[in-house]
Structure formats: C-alpha cells, structure tokens
C-alpha cells in the first residue's frame, strides 16, 4: 500500500470478460480525460469567467433556491435567519424590561414571564448566537481560504434547514401558547414529567435536537473546509486568525454538543417512555442533568466567544494596518481556551454543594481560563499601539468590545470564587456578568464584522455616519442597561422572578436598565435600517474597500458563484498586503464541471482535485423527513422507527448518483 492513489489502480482482479471490458473502459475514459476543459494561461479572463459562471450558477426559481449548495447563499440565509431570531428575542427582552421598569407591576403574568425569559435565553443561545457565527463562517471562510466551496456543501444546506425548522418549532409553539417555560437550561426536576406536564418542555428539548444536529453538521463542514481546502501555500502557520478561531470553535462544538443532545434525549425519554434518569425516587439524579447540560453549556459560551475573537483579530489587523502582534500567542490562546473551556462546567453548580476539592479545582480552572483571553487582549492592544489605527465603525466596535468584555471578564473572575458565587448565585449580578461577556464579547464584534464584511456580501457600503450613531447608542445604552444590574444583584434581586417589591432600593437600577434596553434596541434598529437602506443607496463597494490582508478581498464584491477564477497561491500570513503587483495562482481545475482543490492538512500542498456536488433537493427533503421525525417524537415514541424510514430513504437518495455510468473524472450529481 505504498501508493494511496485510488483512481489509477490497474484492474487485475475479476473474470477475463469483465477485466477486458473494464480495461477498455479505463482506456476510453483516460483519453476522454485529456479533452476536458481546464483553466490555465490559455483559458483565463472574461472567457473563463463566463464559462465558470455557467457551470457554477444554480437553477433559477424556488426549486433552485431550495436546492442550492452555494456556501454564500447558505451563509446569507443563516445570517438573515439568525438576525431575525435576534430581533425576536430582543423584543421579548424589551417586554421583560417593561415589566420590571417599576415594582409590583402587573403588565404580564408570572407564567407568561417564565415563557418570556425561557424563549429569550433559548433563542439567543441556540437560534442566534451559535448559528450567526456559523453563518458568518460559512459565508466567509471559503473566500478567506481561497477556495470555491465549503466541504460537503449539501450537508451545509441540510444544516441550515435543520436550524430553520428548530427555530420554527420553538416559535410556532410559543405563538400557539405551548412554548417552553422552564428556563434556557431546563433544570430537572422542574422540566421533568412531574413538574412540567403538557408539551412545553418537550418542545424545548426537540428544539435542542434540531439545533444540535444543525450545529454539529456545520462544525464538521467547517473543520473539513479549514483543514483540507486552504489555498496552496496557506500552511497552518499562515492561516488567518478567524479560520483558527472557527477551527477551534468547530472542534469544541463536536465535543460539547453531544452532551446536550444526550441530556435532552434522556429528558424526552423520561417524559415520554418513563425512563428514570433524572427521577430521584428511582435512583436517578437531577444533578446528572446539570452535569451533562453544563458540560455543554460552559464550552457553549466559548463557542460563541471564540469566533468573535476571530472577528476582533480581523478588524484590528485591517484597521491598524499591521499584522496581529504575536500571532502564535493568539493561536495558542485560542487553542488553550478551547481546551480549558471543558474543565470549568462545575462552576455553574457551586450552589449545589460539592466536595471541597471540587470547589478548589473548579475555582482554579475558572480563573485560569482568563489567562489566554487576557493574552489575546494584550495582543490586540499591542497591535493597535504599534500600528496606525483608523477608527472606522468596525474598529469602534472593537474598542467597545475590549472595554465591555474586560468588565465582564473581571466580574467573571471574581464569581469563580466560591464564597462570592454563593452570595450572588441566581441574582442579577450574574445576569449582568453574562450579558457583559456575551453582548460585549460576541454581539459587539458581530456588529463590527457585519459592517466590515457587508460590502463583500452585498457589493455596497453601509453609511459610516449612521454606523457611528448606532455604535454609540448600542455601546452607551448597553452600559446603562446592564451596569445597574450588578447593584440590583448585590442588593439581592433574584433573576427569573417576574416582579419585585417596592422599597428595597431596586427601583432605580431597574428603571435605568429598562431605559438602557430601549436605547440599545433603538441602536440595533438603526443598524438594521442602515443595512437595509444601504442595499439600495449605499456607495458601490470596490473589491477591497478597507485594504484588508486576506483573500476574501481578492475577489469582486459580491463574489461570483465560483469565488475565484483561478485558485490563488499564498506565501505569507497577509497575502493581499504582499502581492507585489501580480496575483499568483494555480491552474488545471475543470471549467465545465464544478471542481475545487484539496490541499494537505498542515503544509497546504496540492493534494487532490475534488468535485463539488450539483445543486440537489435531497438535503431539503431529508431535513423535512428528519424534521417530521423529531416533531412527531414529541407525541409518540413510535415516531422514531416509522420516521426513520423516510429519513433513511431521503439520505440514500442524496448520496445516490443520478446516472450510474462512469465519468472520465468524478462528478457528484
């Protein structure tokens, strides 16, 4: 087994007749292979681009829309869908803030309030924060890596539809008044059969199943894309930091998400078929839920945060006009955060009572994880200090991020200490802390990077002036909304309670929070309007409006369906800054069939030519079949065997070639 090639093994085994036939066929295909059209010095420029356009365009119409495998289309859908869920969950937050604006308010009932915070948290975590990062990555990573498609584009399409159906399930249930009311972490026994009769908890648990399948599929797509499809020469040591962040994030998804999928499956089976995993009376344990949930839930916050650090690295580099200071340190910080994140989950459970050594270990681990994050922050500051920073809107968000995240990080480090944690556990102090790290740490960089990549995605610029206005509204409004919560928490205000009595000093912080929340909402609204209006009225964007260093700026804005006419070659960390007038490319890829280049994992030397699948309706049909299985299993265990049959058929049809004849070179039909 010295040669690992699989496409050039001579046929030597079989009956004489068959061997003769196969050899003749091999020869015929080999001669046809010579006639295939490929890009190169003789086929370049407008001629090549017109032909690639024909090959890579998808069929028009609704069926073509459902069948698309273009990562840019799927990424855009991810982004738009996630932003809509962000708006919906934000609207719920406003309703909650109205309720809490004054003490003993009767605006909404306790039950409705339970639903509101459950929907807000679940939507923000599962339907906004993770998918939006995946959406950005699915769109931009192939462009950044200089390739034509993600790996497994049909799986990518499938992952989007699963995500969409999960979101529709949750919000459909909410509208029908069977939305979950058990909090975003759905602790047992509250979520178990005894205390949550009806279907509210099951809806929550199956929404988890949908979004986990989706996130896991997207993670595999991203890992394979990042490891195998980088432009020749883009060794791991030259990979853009956003790609590093997404690689670590995706690996974390792969290890963390199975925990919540397992936990929620066990919850459903407790509720539906009477297993006893979480039932104390039959020797189950509610804490088993907490362990499994937080084994996912803690890495989850880094799953949301690490892509955002990638955004910050990208923006800081471009707007400081200098490569990121101490690139290896940033990479190692990402990797070590990814590892440490799995050793912290128990700090969410300090109040459940632990052995002494458990307290000490998880306190130490929780404090340790701040080290790599702090290193990254110092690297960004050093980059700015040593560069020539331009404070355009994306860069303002980076500054807002650093200030806000550092405050949230500090309140995080102090609650790693058990005595303090026990005091502020389940109070608004914790609510303040995690909004500082999640909004400051993820949403600010996200708004920055959306402004930054908006011209690449749409071909137009967002208004800089309006962008500055909404930055200040979001930034200052945020501080007004969440800083007072620290005090409300220290005064003893518990989270998740629909009202509070007058006269405890809670009126002022709550009123300020409500005012701040509305300022943020107005700021976000202006951001959205800016985005919508700029689609028509924004200045036309050139290929590289900001002077970025990475390959997404080498192609037009917006990029053509095939991304790059020729596959680029890279010889530094900042290929666009080191061009020297000419753009090095490799050639020889097929033009009349979709083909991309695979490179080796570490050194990114050309390895294989890989066909890219044609558009197909099967991922959509498969997601409908699996969706029916998941939703009906809320009601009956028999959904599992019976729902599995159409799912298996759809998945088989997805894989099965349309024509069973040999091609000169592989195609995926």
């Amino acid at each position, binding site marked *: 087994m010295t040669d*690992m*090639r*699989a*496409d*050039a*093994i001579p*046929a*030597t*085994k*079989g009956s004489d007749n*068959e061997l003769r036939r*196969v050899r003749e*066929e091999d020869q015929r295909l080999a001669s046809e292979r010579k006639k295939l059209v*490929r890009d*190169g010095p003789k086929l370049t420029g407008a001629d090549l681009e017109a032909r690639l356009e024909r090959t890579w365009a998808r069929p028009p119409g609704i069926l073509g829309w459902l069948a698309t495998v273009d990562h840019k289309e799927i990424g855009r859908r991810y982004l738009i869908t996630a932003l809509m869920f962000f708006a919906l969950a934000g609207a719920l937050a406003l309703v909650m803030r109205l309720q809490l604006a004054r003490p003993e308010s009767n605006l909404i009932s306790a039950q409705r309030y339970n639903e509101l915070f459950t929907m807000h948290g679940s939507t923000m975590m599962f339907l906004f924060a993770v998918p939006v990062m995946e959406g950005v990555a699915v769109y931009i990573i192939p462009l950044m890596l200089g390739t034509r498609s993600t*790996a*497994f584009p049909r799986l990518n399409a499938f992952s989007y539809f699963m995500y969409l159906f999960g979101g529709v399930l949750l919000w459909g249930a909410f509208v029908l008044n069977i939305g979950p009311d058990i909090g975003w972490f759905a602790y047992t026994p509250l979520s178990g059969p005894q205390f949550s009769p009806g279907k509210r908890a099951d809806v929550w648990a199956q929404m988890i199943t949908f979004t986990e399948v989706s996130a896991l599929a997207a993670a*595999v797509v991203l890992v*394979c894309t990042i*490891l195998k499809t980088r432009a020749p020469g883009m060794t791991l040591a030259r990979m853009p930091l956003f790609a590093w962040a997404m690689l670590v994030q995706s690996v974390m998804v*792969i290890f963390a*998400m199975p925990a919540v999928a*397992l936990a929620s499956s066990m919850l459903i*089976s407790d509720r539906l*078929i*009477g*297993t*006893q*995993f979480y*039932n104390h009376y*039959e*020797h*189950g*344990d509610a804490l*088993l839920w907490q362990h499994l949930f937080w*084994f996912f839930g803690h890495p989850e916050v880094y799953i949301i945060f690490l892509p955002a650090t990638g955004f910050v690295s990208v923006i800081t580099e471009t707007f400081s006009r200098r490569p990121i200071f101490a690139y290896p340190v940033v990479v190692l910080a990402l990797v070590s955060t990814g590892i440490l994140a799995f050793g912290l989950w128990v700090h969410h459970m300090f109040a459940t009572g632990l052995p002494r050594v458990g307290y000490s270990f998880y306190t130490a681990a929780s404090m340790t994880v701040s080290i790599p994050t702090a290193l990254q922050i110092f690297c960004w500051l050093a980059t700015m200090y040593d560069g020539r920073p331009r404070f355009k809107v994306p860069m303002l968000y980076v500054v807002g991020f650093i200030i806000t995240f550092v405050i949230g990080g500090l309140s995080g480090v102090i609650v790693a200490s058990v005595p303090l944690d026990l005091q502020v556990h389940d109070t608004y102090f914790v609510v303040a802390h995690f909004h500082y790290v999640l909004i400051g740490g993820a949403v600010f960089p996200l708004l920055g990077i959306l402004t930054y990549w908006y011209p690449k995605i749409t071909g137009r610029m967002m208004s800089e002036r309006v962008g500055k206005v909404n930055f200040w509204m979001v930034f200052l409004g945020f501080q007004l909304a969440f800083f007072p919560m620290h005090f409300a928490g220290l005064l003893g205000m518990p989270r998740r309670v629909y009202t509070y009595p007058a006269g405890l000093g809670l009126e002022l912080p709550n009123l300020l929070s409500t005012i701040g929340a509305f300022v943020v909402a107005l700021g976000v609204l202006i951001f959205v309007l800016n985005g919508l209006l700029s689609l028509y009225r924004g200045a036309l964007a050139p290929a590289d409006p900001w002077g970025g260093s990475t390959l997404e700026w*080498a192609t037009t804005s917006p990029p053509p369906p095939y991304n790059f006419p*020729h596959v680029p*070659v890279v010889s530094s960390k900042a290929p666009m800054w080191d061009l020297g007038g000419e*753009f*090095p*490319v*490799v*050639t*020889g890829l097929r033009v009349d069939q979709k083909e991309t*280049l*695979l490179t080796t994992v570490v050194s990114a030397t*050309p390895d*294989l*030519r*890989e066909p890219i699948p044609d558009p197909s309706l099967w991922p959509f049909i498969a997601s409908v079949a699996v969706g029916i299985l998941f939703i009906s299993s809320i009601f009956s265990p028999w959904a599992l065997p019976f729902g599995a049959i159409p799912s298996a058929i759809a998945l*088989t049809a997805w894989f*099965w*070639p349309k024509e*069973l*004849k*040999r*091609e000169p*070179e*592989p195609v995926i039909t």
Partner: protein
Amino acid sequence: MIHTPRFTEDLSELPTSKFGTSSLTWWGILGFMVIEGAGFALAFAAYFFIMGHEQGWPPEGRRAPELLYGTLFTILILLSEIPNSMIKKAAHERDVPAIRLLMPVIIGIGIALFVIRGFEFNNLNCRWTDDAYSSIIWALLFLHTTHVLTDWIDTVVLWALMMTDVGWEGRRLVDTDENSLYWRYVWLLWLPIYAMIYWIPRL
C-alpha cells in the same frame, strides 16, 4: 479577474481520489466518529454517575443481564472484522469482484447481529422504566443498536452501488475503504459497552 494572474503551477495531473487522510470524506467520517464517541463517552459517564449513587451494582434486588447473548454478539461482531479487513484490502487493490462478494457476508452478519440483539434486550433482566440503572443499561444497548443499524444501512446502500459499473471508480473504492474503517469503530465501541452492561455488574 481584478488582479493580473501569475500562473505558477498546472494541477491537471493531480489525482482525484486517494485513500486515507488525503480524502475529504475521511475527515468527515472522523468528525462524525468523534461526535458519536463524545456522545458515548458521556453516556458512559452517566452510567458511572448513576452507579456511584448505588450501594450495589446491579442495585439490590436486580440480577445482572444474562451473559450468553451479549457474549455471542461480541464473538460474532469480532469475527466480522475478518471479512471487513478483506473488503478493505480488496478496495485498495481495486478487487471489485471480491468486494461484491464479501459485502453481502458483512450484511448477513449484520442481520444475525440484530437477531441476537433482540435476545439481548429480552435478557437484560429489567425494563427501562424500573429504575435509573435499568434506564442507562437500556440506553447504552439502544444507542449501540442504532450505531450498528446506521452502518448496516450504509453498507447495504454501498453494496448496491458497488454492484453497478461505477463500483470500478476510484471514489467508490475510497467509500468502501472508509465504510470498513467505520465498521471497525462500531465494533470497537461495543467492547466497553459489553463490559459495562455484562461484566461490571458481575464484579
């Protein structure tokens, strides 16, 4: 084209399929293996967590599952590695006739495994509703059954494809190679589950 291209290398002679880590699907399969492995590892953790709460294992009043069928299953799934390795080797040699002949053997072994698995479920000496111990035992066996079932269906589909002319294509040989790799993973994962269901309660 915005920038003037400088042509460096022509890759038209690059292969279109290779075995092992060059293959994109190899990495995809690895990804799914890790996902499943993480799921199983956490189910194992749940098993030991529940065990930690009990005075005895199996808990007092329960009998450990009957050894016979689980052991039969283990022997047969281990034996299945013989045709599995032969298929893997045949894929590397482009010995399509051997693949076409051996895949039905694996598929047949799969069917036998499902029959034995039925007896296993019947001889666990508990129902999943009894207590947390019973629930986790059933869960482990159920999870592994779905694992075997998915790869079995995959094998059937691949076999049907290998019976056609495209079976001679390099990419299909890589598929066959990777399907064998996956089957190894299925039986490897069974070994700790076998120990946990049948032997740890007997310690």
